[in-house]
């Protein structure tokens, strides 16, 4: 690889938006972006096939920091770990806090620290399952990095994607983040126990989600009180 090519690649890696590309490398940036998306999708299909071949039910759980993704997973794994062999992959910028919380409920966990990346991608998941004997698992949960934007760029190859929002985020959170709702199968509105105190318009959140994605299943939960957790598990087919 020549020094010039090397510099171009480094420049492409540094550019997060096509709009920032100089005219002379704009084509290259667009092609690179397309290739990355294509490669992710191919790998995600491969991951999904591995899950299917091993009769594994798989879920990608996305949502903002503090929405309650980990708390919901704690409740679910607590209820399921006596009947299913569970693997939970936790994505975070840094720390092992979430994996440690979930591990207490008898699920095996693997932490991915993404460093500067704001979402997990299919390559991360592929790296993990290549090193695992998938015959040892019945259910795989992937808790994505906490935010409502970047995970929409990368599918991971799971059966279903759950998006978790909460009453503390306010009633506009759904309409402000349409992309992830479009790409999800189940929308969970968590912290329902705080609805009255906060005065959040949950009906608006539900109708916004349905407007964006008419096929999406919407459920209100409270990971704290356990409200509707069983119902959520039924929706997930667990």
């Amino acid at each position, binding site marked *: *690889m020549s020094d010039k090519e*090397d510099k171009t690649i480094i420049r492409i*890696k540094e550019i997060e938006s096509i709009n920032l590309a100089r005219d002379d490398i704009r084509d290259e940036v667009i092609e690179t972006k397309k290739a990355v998306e294509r490669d992710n999708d191919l790998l995600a299909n491969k991951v999904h096939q591995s899950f299917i071949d091993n009769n594994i039910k798989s879920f990608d759980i996305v949502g903002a920091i503090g929405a309650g993704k980990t708390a919901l997973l704690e409740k679910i794994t607590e209820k399921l770990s006596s009947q299913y062999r569970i693997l939970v992959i936790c994505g975070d*910028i*840094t720390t*092992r806090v979430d994996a440690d919380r979930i591990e207490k409920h008898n699920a095996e966990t*693997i*932490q*991915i*620290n*993404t*460093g*500067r*990346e704001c979402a997990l991608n299919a390559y*991360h998941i592929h*790296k*993990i399952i290549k*090193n695992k004997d998938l015959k040892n698992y019945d259910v795989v949960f992937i808790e994505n990095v906490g935010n409502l934007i970047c995970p929409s760029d990368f599918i991971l190859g799971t059966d279903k994607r759950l998006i978790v929002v909460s009453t503390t985020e306010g009633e506009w959170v759904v309409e402000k983040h349409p992309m992830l709702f479009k790409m999800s199968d189940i929308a969970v509105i968590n912290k329902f126990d705080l609805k009255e105190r906060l005065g959040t318009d949950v009906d608006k959140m539900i109708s916004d989600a349905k407007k964006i994605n008419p096929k999406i299943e919407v459920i209100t939960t409270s990971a704290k009180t356990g409200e509707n957790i069983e119902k959520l598990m039924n929706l997930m087919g667990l």
Partner: protein
Amino acid sequence: MKEELVKIEELIRSFDDIDKSDIKGLMQRFFTKLSNRLENYVGDYPTFIEPVYLEDNVKIGDDVLLGPNVYIGANSLIQDYVEISNTIIFDNVKIGQNFKLENCIVAKDSSFNFKNLNIKSSVLIGAANSKDELQSIKF
């Protein structure tokens, strides 16, 4: 974990006569025992897929992906855009920019002073300033 590490280091010492079947088994046993240790590296938040074990004073560049199953010895340098999985790197090693190592062992004090290498299932050893100078054995 340390026991397997010592045995692996001993095995690769006889570089021209490595028992390849022993290496695979030892590496597998080592990785099943590998724990996480990420506290003492120098660098800005690489991507880690656990387990990753870093001895003291490992320097890590930008856009680096380490794991799963990575052990890096003390005072080693991992430069920008490197990707390493299922690999053991002993002490005082220098890995060049944009290296991709999968299922490799890198001997102590090795130094690779060039960019862009993609290599699998190999023992790497010594100092090299270009790909042509690289000493490696497939296993």
